């Protein structure tokens, strides 16, 4: 299974993402933001960081970069994509996922391990968990306050597209939403960092199941 990790000026979790994917068995290529075309891959991962210094809005400039046209084409062709933290912001800015990530309600940068509730196991990303399971995953963000209007929220809820919620109010996100799925369930955006929870020496392994279940689903697809 092949994965591409996008790299923008200011990305800082690109290597962690590549390591997490490689350890789970993916063949990983890192792709620079100026590359207009993506290699043929099964999964595109948009890593965390501060692409383009968070200028204008987090993820806004990255969303206009040449490689993101490739990302949009990949998703429209039915490909899988995972966006973590700044990657989630990029996915909302490209409108591949609904809603927006706003400044944390407490205005503070939040950097700690939080509890997440797995809200659905009906996706390639979450099938390795059990519904309602609580996992410990680190967050590190200033703009993770998920906002969407009532109509969008109802659609997310009714279509079982809320992947993870925080077990507490971390950043003011609507209904404590931490991660959402696209309508075809092949795109996941989440603020917490599963790639930082794959090694017992680094404080936990609750993120492993996400990468492993992706690989299993892609292999069997």
């Amino acid at each position, binding site marked *: 299974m092949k994965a591409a990790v996008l790299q923008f000026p200011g990305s800082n979790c690109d290597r962690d993402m590549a390591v997490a994917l490689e350890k789970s068995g993916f063949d990983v290529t890192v792709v620079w933001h100026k590359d207009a075309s993506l290699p043929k891959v099964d999964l595109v991962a948009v890593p965390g960081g501060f692409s383009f210094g968070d200028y204008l809005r987090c993820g806004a400039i990255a969303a206009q970069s040449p490689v993101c046209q490739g990302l949009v084409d990949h998703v429209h062709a039915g490909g899988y994509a995972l966006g973590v933290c700044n990657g989630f912001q990029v996915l909302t800015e490209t409108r591949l996922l609904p809603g*927006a990530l706003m400044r944390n309600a407490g*205005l503070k940068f939040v950097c700690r391990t939080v509890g997440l509730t797995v809200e659905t196991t009906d996706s390639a990303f979450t099938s390795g968990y059990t519904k309602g399971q609580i996992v410990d995953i680190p967050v590190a963000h200033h703009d993770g306050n998920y906002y969407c209007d009532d109509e969008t929220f109802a659609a997310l809820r009714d279509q079982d597209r809320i992947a993870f919620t925080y077990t507490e109010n971390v950043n003011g996100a609507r209904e404590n939403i931490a991660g959402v799925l696209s309508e075809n369930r092949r795109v996941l955006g989440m603020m917490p960092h599963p790639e930082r929870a794959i090694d017992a020496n680094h404080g936990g392994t609750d993120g492993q199941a996400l990468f492993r279940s992706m690989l299993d689903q892609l292999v069997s697809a």
Partner: protein
Amino acid sequence: MKARVHVMLKNGVLDPQGEAVRHALGALGFAGVEGVRQGKVIELDLADGTTEATVKEMCEKLLANTVIESYTVELS
């Protein structure tokens, strides 16, 4: 020619920064500040003949995120 674009959070979208400014004004002793909304102003130097429609397209595609923000354009 110049264009000035005002980008504001939509009504109904909580503006935590505006709220923090409102609290700070209260702490400074300014009574009666009932609400503060913080936005941004973007000034564009444009080639003569650029239309308002083009600037609006810039807003829709990049300058504003219309999921949470509204914008107004002033040409001069």
